[in-house]
């Protein structure tokens, strides 16, 4: 028996409104949740176009017949990875779709297969938590014929490279996620990772942080989770209290995670261990976490799983982004000994649904950058005032090192997908940023000039 996908109406609308000129192909992601009994799809997002600059533009192909072969799988998977970072706990990329003209329908199946395996592999990289036996490893592929709009839905078990396609149901429904329960918590971090003598920063920074974070992630995974202050046994139904025909309302649950203060030593030592280190990395602050569950009899154990995974993901995503940025911009000598702000999580509502997605703002970015990114990654407009930046406060300690004045500040090209080389035409936000820094630089210079004049006046008056 195949899986059954319950899909939001808006997805149908989105897919039917996709502009697919002539004989071109469009790829995209399917976002939702899978449970053992049912699967839900709440969003569909097309793969954003790459800049056409003499490079082949895979998603909008002008050639017929062989467009599928030139499909840039890497581009699709990278989009999937970036989108995954924007999804709260419980919600993930669970499939891909492909719109092709009728003559490519047959080939499309192979392409979809390649895509779904590649996407799953790429988004699982760097994951700090482990899948359990209960996790659903079937992912969905959807083929849409651009002419007839006929939909073929199949699933693959991405754990098994030899798995074959299984047919699945694709059913549209309204209000799929209106009553999806929401779990929230804020987690404090105070982690110190030693940098052993043999390691050299900044090259080994990633290694040191990854090792440290792995230990921390295990503590979170093994930790105890209270829901609304209660240690519920795993099999208890979360929404058990609701009457059958009661109006579906989204409930919010507060999660608390308790871990032992430390793990007792495994080896029988009588002295403290001593390691020679060349430095340390201290990660401090608070992260805001959110996770959604489906409404099909979710149990307490699912709830604790999704919120814990969001906790782990949000920390590892930010660290990854920070390190990627560092790699791209090169080592900033002034960053040693200075507290550098990691990207801050902000939330934005999904239009027409009671769900939120999130994004990360670097210290020198602003809300309009987030809005631009949401447009590019998720293909919808978000009014700036609907973006909630209040969940995580800006760190108080000044992060500007006056030596390397603001002019040198990194230009973050967040909207260009990091795996690709930067395109010089760039994005509008880059120009915007340089404006920002320019003005700031002018202000700084003016202030210094004023100070200088002031001092000199004092001298002269003597």
């Amino acid at each position, binding site marked *: 028996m195949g899986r059954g996908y319950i899909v939001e109406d808006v997805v149908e609308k989105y897919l039917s409104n996709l502009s697919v000129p002539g004989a071109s192909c469009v790829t995209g992601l399917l976002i939702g949740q899978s449970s053992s009994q049912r699967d839900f799809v709440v969003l569909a997002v097309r793969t954003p176009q790459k800049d056409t600059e003499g490079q082949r533009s895979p998603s909008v192909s002008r050639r017929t017949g062989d467009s599928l072969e030139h499909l840039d799988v890497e581009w699709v998977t990278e989009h999937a990875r970036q989108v995954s970072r924007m999804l709260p706990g419980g919600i993930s990329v669970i499939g891909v779709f492909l719109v092709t003209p009728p003559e490519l329908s047959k080939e499309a199946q192979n392409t979809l297969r390649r895509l779904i395996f590649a996407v799953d592999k790429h988004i699982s990289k760097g994951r700090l938590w482990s899948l359990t036996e209960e996790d659903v490893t079937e992912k969905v592929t959807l083929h849409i014929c651009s002419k007839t709009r006929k939909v073929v839905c199949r699933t693959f078990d991405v754990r098994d490279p030899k798995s074959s396609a299984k047919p699945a149901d694709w059913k549209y429904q309204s209000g799929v996620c209106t009553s999806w329960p929401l779990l929230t918590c804020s987690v404090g971090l105070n982690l110190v990772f030693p940098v052993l003598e043999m390691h050299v920063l900044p090259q080994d920074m990633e290694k040191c942080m990854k090792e440290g974070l792995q230990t921390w992630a295990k503590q979170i995974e093994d930790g105890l989770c209270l829901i609304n202050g209660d240690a519920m046994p795993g099999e208890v139904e979360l929404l058990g209290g609701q009457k059958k025909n009661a109006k579906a309302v989204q409930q919010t649950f507060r999660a608390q995670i308790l871990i032992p203060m430390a793990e007792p030593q495994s080896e029988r030592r009588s002295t403290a261990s001593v390691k020679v280190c060349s430095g340390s990395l201290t990660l401090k602050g608070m992260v805001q976490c959110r996770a959604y569950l489906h409404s099909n009899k979710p149990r307490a154990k699912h709830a604790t799983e999704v919120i814990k995974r969001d906790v782990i993901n949000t920390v590892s995503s930010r660290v990854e982004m920070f390190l990627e940025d560092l790699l791209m911009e090169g080592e900033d000598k002034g960053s040693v000994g200075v507290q550098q702000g990691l990207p801050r*999580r902000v939330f934005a509502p999904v239009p027409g649904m009671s769900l939120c997605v999130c994004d990360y703002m670097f210290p020198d970015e602003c809300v309009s950058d987030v809005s631009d990114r949401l447009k590019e990654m998720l293909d919808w407009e978000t009014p700036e005032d609907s973006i909630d930046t209040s969940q995580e406060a800006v760190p108080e300690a000044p992060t500007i090192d006056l030596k390397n004045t603001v002019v040198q500040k990194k230009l973050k090209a967040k909207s260009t997908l990091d795996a690709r080389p930067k395109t010089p035409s760039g994005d509008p936000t880059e120009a915007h940023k340089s404006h920002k820094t320019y003005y700031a630089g002018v202000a700084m210079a003016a202030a210094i000039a004023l100070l200088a004049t002031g001092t000199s006046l004092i001298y002269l008056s003597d």
Partner: protein
Amino acid sequence: MVVGNIILRLRGSLEFKCQLDSTDVPHVQKVISRTFEALGSQVKAESLVLSLSSSPVFLWPNKGGHATAGEISPNRPCKDLQQLIQTDDQESSRKKSAKKDLKNPTAGIINLTLMTEVTEPGVHSAPTLLRGSKKHHLLQTTLPMDCVVSVLSSESISVVCGTLVGALCSQLGDMEKVALRHMKGTALLIPQPFHFLLPAPVGLVTVVYPAGVPDSQLETRRKELHSLFELPDNRPYLRRANALHFPDEPYKDGYLRNPHVHLNHPALENGKPYLVQGVYSYHHYMQDRVDDNGWGCAYRSLQTICSWFQQQGYVERAVPSHKEIQQALVEVGDKQVSFLGSRQWIGSIEVAAVLDQLLGVTSKIMFVSQGSELASKGRELANHFLSEGTPIMIGGGVLAHTILGVAWSETTGQIRYLILDPHYTGAEDLQVITDKGWCGWKGPEFWDQNAYYNLCLPQRPKTI
């Protein structure tokens, strides 16, 4: 042990981590002290959570004793916590033994574990990363916290929480002192807490000793504590082996401890029982996969005596095997080499020789030419149990036994002997052992009235 009191035991690990920029002593001491101070703050933080073992209850002691379970509010008496602890299936038999354990002052302990709530953030701003580039030594270990407090069962939960946090802080202080006292360079010895039940009026105390330092090197410290607690200076109370054994922690070696406490003592007119002091293990035929049925009774009695000296902290060596006992006798010249591996019996004299050779313990030998004379040895035996309190090995006729106590009336001359019989070949079943009299009170007719007997009365070394 004050009636109406409850004992709470809080255990957990605290991570001790510090960076030493240099290895000169004043700097190291400063950093260690600062790290302990930081741990003290952690323990007083709102994120500290105490988990009530075997229950779904969690307490936040630094938030006024707020708890998860709805029925428990901070001003309820702490004895209510006991009702929430889930016991296992044999609840009825547990209740039965709980009654008997009223003699044991630590029955009915409430166990708690240290946890922290990561979702109670001290900071509220987004994360930052700080890169430090100073070369340093990183010291890392976990501190094995173990606090015991005794409180009135009517005391409110919020007050008890405060007491527990206070106990944690003061234990950290003790640990800091021990760590600094025994520190050498960058080698930090891990401070370990031990609980001791000292004679009234002192009661329960906790002492922190550095790991890896044997008792023999800690005599000065023990002398300080003996004078602080006004303990006699000729017997050990504060060696690690004297540490209180909590009833909910089974002995891992599988031997029964003090089976005699489960017996009812004979009521003699104007008489009273005089019993072995402290803790011993019951050693008998067929244990340790050694088939000594028919010849090893004296060896087993000797093992019981050795176990007593080990558990009272006089020696650190383990209870000797039959082989080791025979080896010791060959070494002192008492037996020929051919004795090794044989099934030859030994008597009280040999027992005394082995105690001396392996444990450095001297013994008094008592001789009776006829078993009937034992009936008149009440006073002597009673005095032995009063002053030395060690188990006695008695050999005569063709049998060896262990005497654990005597009940004797000065006026009527009635006498009973508490006997631990090494001839038992069954499993470590307390019920069988007490019901069938393998550990039990016997009358003077128990002895062969015509045989002669030798008794080995081990003497306590005068040491702390």
